[in-house]
Each structure stands twice: as C-alpha cells, then as structure tokens.
C-alpha cells in the first residue's frame, strides 16, 4: 500500500506550482533600483596576443556608464581552481592564472576582453562593437595529441607545456597490471572518444551585482548550484571581500547539470563593477554566449584494455586517457578525469588489477568541467563498451560475462581506492531482464527484420560513487574545500518548521522531498515544513548540489538537526508531563509517556519553548532551533543495470530507440515519483550524448556548434517511454537515511546501453562493426554500415 505522506510517498512537487504557473523567481527576474547592464566583448579568435584595447569611441556612445578591460583587474585575484591534483611523480598539477577579463592573451573563442556597462543592454552591445581591439593571432591548440607534441604552441607561456598533469591511479598498481595483461589468456582493446558536451540548462546564466555604499555590503544574485561556495571562492580568492560583507543569493535556478557549480568571471565582474560604478550591474547570458562561456563537459580520448583469463574472469584493466581541460582550469575541472573517473574504473566487477593513466591537457577551447555524472559516465562508458566487445570476441553472452565477474560480497575494497558498502548487482540484472522483457527480444528482432530494419539489444551495468564526500578523504585527494553539508531546523512557536539547507535546489524537488523526511521523523503533515535554500544570509553554510549528494549528505544533515530538535522537545515534554525524559515517546506528532495515556501535542511543546512560563529553565534554554553539520563517512554507491533496444534503418543509418529499461539500486527512496523523474531526465541526457549532441571545434579553434541549429539536443520524439524500477534497494550503511542518490545515474548508465545496442544491430545485419564513436548520427552509422 503506497504511503500518502512522509518517506516513501510520491508527494506532488510543491515547487511546481510556481514553476508551472510562471511565478518562479529566477535571477533574471531580479531587478535592482538604478540597475545598469553589462555586455561582454568576447574574443572571436581562439588564441591571440592582445594588443591595445581602444575604448575611446565606445565610451562616447549613448548610454555608456563605463567600459572595463583587463587593465582594470590588475591586482584583482585570479578565478581560482578548487582542486589540486598531484601527478604520478608526486608533483602538483600545472595551474595557470585566469583573469576576470583577458590580460595579455585571449585563449579561447568567448574569452572576455572588455565589458561595457550601460543604461540598457542594447546600448552596451552597440558600444561593444565600437571597441577597437588589436589581436595578433597565434596558432590555436585544439587537438589534445598535438597539444602535447614537442614544440607545440603553449596556451600558457608561463607553464612548461600544455600538460596540466600526468596522473596514475594507483601508481603502485602499474607494474602488476602490466604483468597481468602480459600473462592474460585474452586482451580486448578499445579506442574511443567521449565527445565534448554542452550542458544547456534551460535557464542561461545570469548575475546581478549590488553594492550598498552605506554599509559596505556586497550582494551577488547568481544562477548557481552552490551560493556559499561562490561566496568563498569569489570573496576570498578573487575580490578580497570577507564573507560577512558578501551575500550570495541563488534563487530559483532553471537547471544546472554541473555547469552552474563553478565560479565564473561574469559573477566576479558584476560584483566588482557594482562597487566601481556605484550601481547594480546585471548580466544575462544569451544562448549563443552560453555555448562559449559555460563550462563544457566530457571530452576524453581513451584506450582501454580488458584482460581475461582462460575462464573469462577479468584479471586486469588498463586505461590511457587524454582529458581536455580547455584554456583555463574551471573550479573542479582537475578532479573530474582523475578522482571522479579513476575511482570508478572497477565498475561492478571484481577485477583484481586496475591502472588508470590520465593526462589532462590545456587547449584553446572553452574550459571543461563536471557535467551530469562528471567522470563516472566516462569510466562507465569505456568499461561497459570494452566488456561488450570482449564478450563478442570470446563468443559469450554479454550478460553472463558480466554476472560471472560481479562483485557479490560487501563491503568490497576495489583496487582503485574505494570501498563499496553495499549492493546486489545480480538483483538489478534480474530485475532488468524482467522489466525489459529480454526473453521477448528475439521475437521483436524478427518483427523489425520483417520491416527491413536491424534490431539490436544493448545491456550494461553502472556504479557511481556519489554523496560527495568524506572531507578528510577529499582533502587527501586534493580538494580545497570540505564536502559536508549543513542544516538549521527552526521550529516556530505554533509548531511549523523552517529548514534551512545548504543543498541548493535547481529542479531536483528538494522543497518537496526534504519535508517528507522531517514530517516522517516528527509525525506531522508535510505542509508544516518549509525549505529555505540558496541564500548565504539565510543558511549557515552549504557546499551545494552536485554529485547526487543532496539527500545523502544534505538530507542527513537535516536528519541530524531534526534529531537534536526532537531530543530537546522531549526534555520540554518530559517537564510538561512530569515524567522522566527516557520514558517520552514521539509518535504521530504527540509526545506520550510510555505505558500511560498521558500525552502532550507537538504544538503545545513548541509553544512552551517560546512562552516558557512552565519550562525547565534551569536545564535548557528557551527556543527551538538547531543546526547540524554532516560529514559523510564514505561515498554512496548507487548501481544498476540498463537495457536498450534500437532499430537501425540500414538505408539511412538512422537509429530509433524502441525500448529503454533501467533497474536501479538507490538504497532507500524518499519520493519514488521524483526519483523516476530524475532517472527519466538522466536517460534523456544520456541518449542525447549517445545519438545527437556534439560540441565541435574546427582546427583553428572556432566553435562550430554554438546554436541549436548545429548542436542537436534530444527532443521528445528522440526518446521512448522508459521502464524504470528502483525496487532493488540495498540501503546505504553509513548515512541515517540509507539513501544513495539518484541524480546522475540515468546519464551515467545510458550511453553504453545505446551504443551496445547499435553495435548489436549492425552485427545482426552481418556487419563486423566493433565500435562507432558517439554521437551515433545517421551519417556515422551509415558510414559504418557501408564502410
């Protein structure tokens, strides 16, 4: 019997009322009195030495308030990087400076050169056209291999080369992995590209800087997934504003997918300029601007080798990856191809020897950072593709080969430094076989063939490490921040609660799911609980939303703070009931004395806390408000099995997805409807990557796919109805909710399923095609069929 409230109920998303009725409050809806507008003049060459920037004519244009160039930011800090990776020789990565506005050189198409602040957007744009910029064009570094070649043009002349780091994980495994591969009965090798992606949240980025001359307080309104992190990075490292004089507000945010985690130059600019011109300054990105200024995702080139013994047991995995950093290091860029990628290379399998080598490379392209899944989709894709290829080479069933190698005993310590606490990979595979009706596939293939189509089935597993992260471990791995989360629970006199959480919501449904947790713990209706987030002036601290961490980490902080509330409320109740605190029970919103019919309602206790006439003032303070910080003991490890069936039209190469099924283990579930929605969205993005999306640069570093005419986003008719199931639950063992996180799973698990299915379809048509790089566009599939 499904519950109608609390944990496990599919409560309707309360935030959707305002999102669906046009009453949301997004950053672009915020307008401050006297506001001016900024337009950034951006480089249209990929690499060049910056000469004179003459703003004389532009400054005389109508409405211009002030024009800023790189020279105005001398003495201002560099946009910081939040993660330092140590390379395999023990040396720190190479870390370039990243000025707010270009100084000396431009390093990618879109690099901001000047900023015009004017009375209107149109005036700012017009004036920007009148700025005269001298640029001596330099050869652009675009291809990663060429970037690492001897004598290659350097993106940053003060660095020794274009290599950010050469990372080995785990370096001590290197020799044993080499030996295991040498002695293996079979080695399958696969070269692949995980193409560059653009996140494309529905809402482009916006920033509004405001400065109060009377108090010296700065405020930044911004489209961010983590306002406290922006406050710290921008305040401490760029502009030198102490946190108590800087407020960062991220109100309703229309999707992030990772690209709104990072601290961007435009945010620092608006904050800086608001003080400089003594007026609020607003920037709203156009979609074209977003393509060349939002951090991109993925962009890995990989060789993976999977070694098996004579009984088809996996004995070793070795990978060699080039990872594109772009022109500067975005906030978490170095961690994505390293610790968020290498740690997942064991997948769901008990491979004893694993070595991951990643060289991160600077190029004259937009910086690359976390995008839904961040490193884990790249790991999953190569592993699940090479397993499929191995199964085909060995003539064994790909599902059986996976099952044979599954980790089945937990906890399981992988050779790549993480310990899976719990899981049941056979259970999710069993579930997938059932919901995907794999038994019926041969019949469906016959039906497709009768229509002249090729039908393929692709199956794969995935595991992710999320719930980022134990701060001490993250610190050892180079994180320059803690990765806890905070919550403050404020109980009002009449019994209602306000929960202030550091987890930002930009579509995830926190305002619905978090109250379900608190309502369950206290036994009160969900609508007595309000969620406040996204404002550093209201929430004590927050590390934000990414890495599927909100419920596992932020939700756990809420549980801890609510536990403190309940403990204090029990003391008040014990006093009111004249009973021992140990005998007080909280059930369905009332405190009772065990074994008696004496009870006092939740609202009477909360009122007593604020009207303490009859109150244990000698023992406890009045009021009912508690804060908790929760630092996770381990990552969480959601896992699952995904299945995709495609039809390929052999005449055109067009792929259509006929069926897609996902069996996930997310541990305990708070709101099944929201979880299904997260999985649907993730699979949609994964299908987008597998079939459609591709960010393309030409050899001169010109961005060619910078509008929806050329960057193909998935549309409704590109995706099927999904079969999703999350009933296989092995609860997380180390957080109080037993939850694992579900935000990225769909995007991690789906691309290999699609590609495996297309390869299967082509093989069924008698074509010995072993791999096609994503996106599997009709042109690429047709070329493979006719190659």
């Amino acid at each position, binding site marked *: 019997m499904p519950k109608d409230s609390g944990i496990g109920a599919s409560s309707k998303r309360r935030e959707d009322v305002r999102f669906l009725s046009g009453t949301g409050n997004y950053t672009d809806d915020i307008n401050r009195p006297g506001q001016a507008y900024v337009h950034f003049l951006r480089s249209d060459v990929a690499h060049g030495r910056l000469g004179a920037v003459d703003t004389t004519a532009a400054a005389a244009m109508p409405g211009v308030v002030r024009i800023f160039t790189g020279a105005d930011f001398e003495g201002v800090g560099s946009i910081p990087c939040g993660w330092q990776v140590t390379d395999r020789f023990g040396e720190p990565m190479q870390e370039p400076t990243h000025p707010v506005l270009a100084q000396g050189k431009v390093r990618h198409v879109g690099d901001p050169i000047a900023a015009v602040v004017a009375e209107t957007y149109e005036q700012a744009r017009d004036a920007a056209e009148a700025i005269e910029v001298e640029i001596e064009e330099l050869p652009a570094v675009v291809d990663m291999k060429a970037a690492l070649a001897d004598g290659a043009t350097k993106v940053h002349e003060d660095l020794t080369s274009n290599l950010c780091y050469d990372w080995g994980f785990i370096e001590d495994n290197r020799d044993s992995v080499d030996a295991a591969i040498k002695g293996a009965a079979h080695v399958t090798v696969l070269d692949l590209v995980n193409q560059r992606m653009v996140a494309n949240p529905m809402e482009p980025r916006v920033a509004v800087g405001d400065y109060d001359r009377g108090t010296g307080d700065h405020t930044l309104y911004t489209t961010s997934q983590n306002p406290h992190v922006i406050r710290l990075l921008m305040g401490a490292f760029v502009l030198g504003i102490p946190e108590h004089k800087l407020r960062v507000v991220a109100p309703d945010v229309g999707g992030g997918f990772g690209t709104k985690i990072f601290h961007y130059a435009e945010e620092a600019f608006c904050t800086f300029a608001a003080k400089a011109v003594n007026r609020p300054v607003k920037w709203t990105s156009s979609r074209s601007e977003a393509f060349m200024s939002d951090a991109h995702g993925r962009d890995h080139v990989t060789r993976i080798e999977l070694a098996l013994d004579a009984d088809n047991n996996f004995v070793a995995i070795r990978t060699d990856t080039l990872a594109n950093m772009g022109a500067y290091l975005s906030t978490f860029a170095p961690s994505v191809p390293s610790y968020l990628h290498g740690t997942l290379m064991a997948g769901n399998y008990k491979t004893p020897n694993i070595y991951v080598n990643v060289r991160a490379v600077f190029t004259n392209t937009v910086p690359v950072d976390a995008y839904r899944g961040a490193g884990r989709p790249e790991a999953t894709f190569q592993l699940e593709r090479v397993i499929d290829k191995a199964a085909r080479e060995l003539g064994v069933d790909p599902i059986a080969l996976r099952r044979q190698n599954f980790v089945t005993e937990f906890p399981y310590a992988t050779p790549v430094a993480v310990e899976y606490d719990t899981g049941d990979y056979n259970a999710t595979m069993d579930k997938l076989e059932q919901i995907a009706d794999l038994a019926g596939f041969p019949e469906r293939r016959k039906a497709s063939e009768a229509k002249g189509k090729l039908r393929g089935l692709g199956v794969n597993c995935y595991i992710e490490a999320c719930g980022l992260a134990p701060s001490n471990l993250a610190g050892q791995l180079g994180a320059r921040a803690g990765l806890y989360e905070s919550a403050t629970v404020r109980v009002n006199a009449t019994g209602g609660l306000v929960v202030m959480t550091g987890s930002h919501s930009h579509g995830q449904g926190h305002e619905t799911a978090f109250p379900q947790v608190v309502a369950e713990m206290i036994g009160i209706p969900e609508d007595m609980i309000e969620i406040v987030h996204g404002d550093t002036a209201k929430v004590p601290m927050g590390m934000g939303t990414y890495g599927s961490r909100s419920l596992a980490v932020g939700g756990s902080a809420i549980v801890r703070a609510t536990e403190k509330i309940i403990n204090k409320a029990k003391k008040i109740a014990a006093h009111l009931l004249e009973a021992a605190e140990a005998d007080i029970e909280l059930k369905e919103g009332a405190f009772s004395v065990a074994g008696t019919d004496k009870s006092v309602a939740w609202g009477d206790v909360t009122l007593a806390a604020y009207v303490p006439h009859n109150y244990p003032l000698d023992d406890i303070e009045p009021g009912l408000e508690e804060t908790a910080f929760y630092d996770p003991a381990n990552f969480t490890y959601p896992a699952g099995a995904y299945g995709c069936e495609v039809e390929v039209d052999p005449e055109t190469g067009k792929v259509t997805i006929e069926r897609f099924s996902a069996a996930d283990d997310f541990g305990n579930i708070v709101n099944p409807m929201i979880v299904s929605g997260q999985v649907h969205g993730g699979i949609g993005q994964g299908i987008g990557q597998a079939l459609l999306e591709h960010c393309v640069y030409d050899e001169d570093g*010109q961005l060619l796919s910078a509008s929806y*005419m*050329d960057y193909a986003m998935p549309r409704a008719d590109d995706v099927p109805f999904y079969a999703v199931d999350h009933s296989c639950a092995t609860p997380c063992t180390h957080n109080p909710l037993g939850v694992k996180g579900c935000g990225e799973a769909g995007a991690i698990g789906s691309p290999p399923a699609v590609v495996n299915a297309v390869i299967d379809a082509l093989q069924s048509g008698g074509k010995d095609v072993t791999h096609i790089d994503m996106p599997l566009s009709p042109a690429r599939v047709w070329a493979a069929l006719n190659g």
Partner: protein
Amino acid sequence: MQITDSREIAAPRADVWQALLSAEVLKDCVPGCQEMSGSPEDGFEATVVQKVGPVKATFKGAVTISDVVEGESLTLTGEGKGGAAGFAKGGARVTLTDSETGTLLSYDVDAKVGGKLAQLGSRIIDGFAKKMADQFFTTFQQRVEGPAPEQEVGAEDAPEPEKKKGWLRRVVSN
C-alpha cells in the same frame, strides 16, 4: 574551406590583368561592397555589407595583393571584421593563361570565418563562399568583357554614357 574553379574571359590577358589591379573594378565585383579605396601597391580598404544565414553585418577590412608575377598570377588576401558577427578572411591565388577565346582565369580560394559567423553559419558557409566567389568572378568577367548595358553593375551610379563601355576602354579614354 577551399574552392578551386576557373572561367573563360573573352579579353586579352593584359586587359584582365589590369582589371585585377583596379580598386574600381574590385569595388564593383566584391558582392555587397560599399566602399573600396587604395592601390595595388598599398593595398585596398573595403567596407562590405553581407548576410550569412541569420547573421547580417558590415565588414570593414583590408585587401592586399602579393606574390605578383606580372601579367600571370597574384594572390589577393583579405580580412574583414564584422563586429559582433565575427570575421571572415581568406586568400585567392589567381592565375591567368592565354586561351583560344581570350584568357583563362583560374582561382584557388581559401576562406575562413570566425566568431558568430562560425558558430551560427558553419553549415551554410561553404555554399555561401562558393556563391560569393561565383558572383565576384561573374561580375568581373562582365566588367572586363564589357557587358550589355542592361547588365551593367552600378549603372545607376554612372551618369556619363561612356561608363557603359567596357572597363578598359573607359580607363584608356580617361
């Protein structure tokens, strides 16, 4: 992108050569050219208005002539800045050889675009550049051969009747 093509021009090679070095001819032949000034020795300054797919812009740029083999071949190199629209630049190696009907003009064009033009127009830029090159050399051919009056380009700017003569006769008569 690269474009290689050629066309027959019914005029002596020396006439074709002189036309190639004329600012006035270039102005008439560059599609959308609003202004053109300068000389073969110092290079030309040009203002061109063009629409590439969804992007319309005024390009201000410079054209230089280099690698001159007198009467036989030269390289035209140009770069136009279109403000927010980005830039276009390219070169054309033009070679003249005598033919039965006059002169065979062969060209190899290499063109590049950047900024918004590349971002929005990359799929249509090849077709656009071919069209531009075709228009340029068609007009050039007409100017050199002396077209029929109704085909004269820029006729509305030509009050004097002798303007309707072929380009060379006009130059000579000046």
